[in-house]
């Protein structure tokens, strides 16, 4: 009894705690979002340490020194829109002593990975955070795509996509546009921002946010994106655009078949790249896809799957690790979220973007292990009495009545049951009688009120 009280006390205490927690979590979320920008890992530039205030190269030179972009970023040659990597020539006007007399580590490590520098071989990547952070965060595909969706006759693909995104020899992943691509339009007189070898700082700021190159949290908007958005590549995923292009004629798809949200994206933060559920339209249900390329064969895409057949826990016979015993009772959130991968094993499940619509597929046909041979005749009532809500997950809308409105086995032969056969059953389990009957509509027909 003490234990019960303890459990009850614990439960009620935790109830209150959880409600308070909800409030705290909400407040914490707001606070976390506001402070996350200040605490982003990997934003501390080279040369700073925990004991020193972080040094942000671009922010310092723009705001503290007052330099314009073109002080460091100069064209490779006159008329070119390709800018060379800033080197000693650009730094020397201010840092001549730092390079030639008193060599300072803080200066060198902005570009070199070792100190003292040995050669150009130890230079850090340029741009500094290439494939890690976006360099044109606010790029809007919606503003740039061709409103007429014209097709390039030579390739059969959308001309605007293919203009900006090219493919290297292996054809695996597309490249992103660079200054040369942008200059196709932005080099013309009157265009804003103007891209030329004489672009001003205002022009550069039309696309770039230099203060945030080293410090993504400098703006109120948190300009940091998932690595696969920045790099255009998914980790541990094997994929080739070229392999898909070969099938274009057969499947009548285009760039926007998979990249269907690109045309409406107004910033890289809202750019949604294809998800696993998007592959299903072709890789799961279309017969022309050979079995080796169906989604049931994980290693078609997932490179971390060992060679051979799919793992046993994905085989549709053995359950995956996440399918614990409690998962049987608490999988609603997992199964109803968008992109839930139930369909990979449960072949009757239809994947949809609206996750909760997937539920019906399983709950129509799968029978719980508890529904044994004696379940329907006797056992189910005792468990339905304990937790009817579990029943209602599958048995919705007057399912019970279908059986409960027919004469039960115990009532036959009916004449003898009415004549007296019901007495022992009623004394043993009167509740079962009142599951369907009431005293007034059944018992009261024969038994006097004095029985009450």
């Amino acid at each position: 009894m003490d234990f019960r009280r303890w459990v009850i006390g614990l439960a009620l205490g935790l109830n209150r705690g959880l409600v308070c927690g909800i409030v705290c979590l909400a407040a914490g979320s707001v606070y976390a979002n506001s402070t996350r920008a200040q605490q982003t890992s990997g934003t501390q530039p080279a040369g700073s340490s925990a004991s020193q205030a972080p040094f942000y190269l671009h922010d310092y030179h723009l705001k503290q020194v007052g330099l314009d972009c073109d002080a460091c970023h100069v064209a490779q040659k006159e008329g070119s829109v390709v800018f060379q990597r800033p080197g000693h020539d650009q730094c020397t006007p201010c840092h001549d002593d730092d390079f030639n007399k008193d060599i300072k580590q803080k200066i060198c490590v902005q570009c070199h990975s070792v100190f003292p520098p040995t050669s150009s071989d130890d230079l850090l990547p340029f741009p500094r955070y290439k494939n890690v952070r976006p360099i044109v965060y606010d790029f809007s595909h919606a503003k740039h795509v061709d409103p007429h969706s014209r097709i390039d006759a030579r390739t059969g693909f959308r001309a605007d996509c293919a203009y900006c995104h090219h493919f290297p020899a292996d054809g695996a992943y597309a490249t992103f546009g660079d200054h040369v691509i942008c200059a196709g339009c932005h080099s013309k007189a009157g265009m804003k921002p103007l891209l030329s070898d004489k672009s001003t700082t205002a022009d550069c700021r039309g696309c770039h946010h230099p203060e945030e190159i080293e410090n993504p949290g400098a703006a109120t908007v948190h300009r940091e994106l998932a690595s696969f958005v920045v790099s255009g590549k998914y980790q541990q995923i094997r994929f080739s655009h070229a392999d898909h292009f070969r099938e274009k004629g057969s499947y009548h798809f285009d760039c926007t078949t998979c990249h269907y949200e690109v045309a409406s994206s107004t910033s890289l933060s809202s750019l949604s790249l294809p998800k696993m559920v998007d592959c299903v339209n072709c890789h799961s249900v279309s017969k022309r896809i050979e079995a080796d390329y169906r989604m049931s064969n994980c290693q078609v895409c997932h490179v971390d799957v060992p060679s051979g057949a799919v793992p046993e826990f994905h085989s549709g016979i053995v359950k995956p690790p996440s399918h614990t015993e409690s998962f049987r009772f608490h999988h609603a959130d997992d199964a109803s979220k968008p992109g839930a991968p139930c369909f990979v094993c449960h072949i009757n499940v239809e994947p949809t973007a609206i996750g909760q619509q997937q539920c019906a597929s399983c709950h129509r046909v799968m029978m719980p292990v508890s529904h044994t041979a004696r379940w329907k005749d006797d056992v189910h009532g005792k468990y339905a009495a304990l937790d009817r809500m579990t029943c209602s997950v599958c048995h919705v809308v007057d399912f019970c009545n279908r059986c409960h409105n027919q004469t039960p086995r115990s009532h036959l032969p009916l004449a003898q049951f009415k004549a007296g056969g019901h007495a022992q059953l009623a004394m043993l389990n009167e509740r079962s009688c009142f599951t369907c009957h009431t005293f007034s509509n059944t018992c009261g027909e024969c038994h006097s009120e004095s029985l009450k």
Partner: protein
Amino acid sequence: MAYLSRLPMQKFATLFAALCLFAAACAAPPSVSANSPAEDKSSESIGDAWDNLLKNTIPQTTPDAALATAPMTYEASPAGDFLDHFFMNNRTEYMRTQTYFTGLPTVTGVINEPASSVANPNGIPYPPAFQSDTNEMYSVVNWGTRGWLSDRVNSNFTLNYSQDLTHVTDASPQRSIIDTFDSNRRLELISGYIDIDGRPSDGAFSGTSLRVGRQDVYGAELAEMDGVSFTLNRPGYSWTIYGGRRYTYFSDPAQRAMGGGNFLIRFGKDSTFEYDTFYYIRGTNLFRYRQTFGNAWFFSTGFRMVGSSPTDFNADAIWSPEDGRTSLRLSFAQKITNKDYFYDYTEDARDFDPRNPLFRLNLEALHPHSQFIIDASRAINDRLRLGGTVWVRRLNNIQDTGPFDTSFQDYRGYCQMSPWSSVDLLFTYHLRDSDNRSKNIPPTEFDDLSNTGETKVQDFTAEVGRTFLRGRLALRAGGFYRNLNFLDQFTVITNARDKGVLGDAAFKLDSRSRLYFDYDLDTDYSVFRPDIQNSQTFRFGLAWSY
């Protein structure tokens, strides 16, 4: 009075009109704003820019090799084209149920002896109550097309067929849902709809889907209907509105029309707010907020109303780190009022079916209560996982205790082990201990069931499984044991036992086909069914997909 009776409908109509306006506003495509002069100019300028780029400015360079890849040769034919877009999943099974009897009479005194004109002192002779076996066949077929004739159009149909292969008598313990309503077969169209989806290039209609036909829509309640639903999915929000006519194979209710809407707003990548509404005689409204914190924490809270009465509040917090080894779920629920549907939202629809002499099950409402669940699982290592659940419910008012509603403590624990490769063991234990059923409180009336019901339930299950041939063949066997303590007006039952054996085998013929075999042997609570010793079920089936 008439005004009062109309008031909920007026409220609903007002709400629905507001929702429609909201939906219409949301449905306005991003390009609607392009109707402004400034945006029109911008649209023209980008079009002109592409004109210049594609016709004049850009030199006609050789396209990327990847883009110029020759397409695979494909010979289209009408039949081949259809088969390329056709899918079908099928599951067909044969089931045999066999019951063994003890020779004792049933609890109502029925015995397995031929009827005669002379009274039998041993009981009431009625052989149909002792049918020993039956054979049944079930089949579920799901088929449809994707992108056939038009890549905008999909179709989906699900047919459920069940058939008694042997006659089942009215008093047989083998009777099942197939035998109800004087039928021994059922053919049910569970779903049958056509989707018309917007293409990404369709502007305002991109991300839209129109579904017409027999369908299920999950929302504030599950809507099974013949009707229309329309979904709009945008990066920042999505909504579905639907309406139609309720379908049922089990009854003939007067009220048929139903409808509703699901509206979801995404606040960034980490949080969503959802409002679901459903109307069928009464309205049900559900509000839900979901938030993720980092990669491990997920928080969800919901509030539900039926009509104008608040009925449920719940809050869940789930901790599930990416390594998948640990999960923790904390759940709190408060039943605020009992003014909702006690089991089935269709219960308000009066049934006109002459074969349904009774209206509904008398399960009564679920009364206000507080409920807390702690569920945790932990993979100790690659071969052992432990987990458990504590579920506590307390009725707010002890006087609300009833035959189907009581305070309780429910404990569930399990252990999964994989001592060897391809072998796994599962042990589960479940205990439910109900409060407030005291024999010391005598019933006040003959039909007073307030103290009636299960006081304690225990379940123990053990299973062992083994896979062969790299998972193609899977065998599983186990057993279960149930123990029940029960209290009734006139009877106290302790340790009523039920036990059985489970076994199944499955073999993947290929990537599309699977054979399976299930067997279970199940005894009964002999105190309730003294005539039945046990029942066995054999189920053999084939699941395949095209």
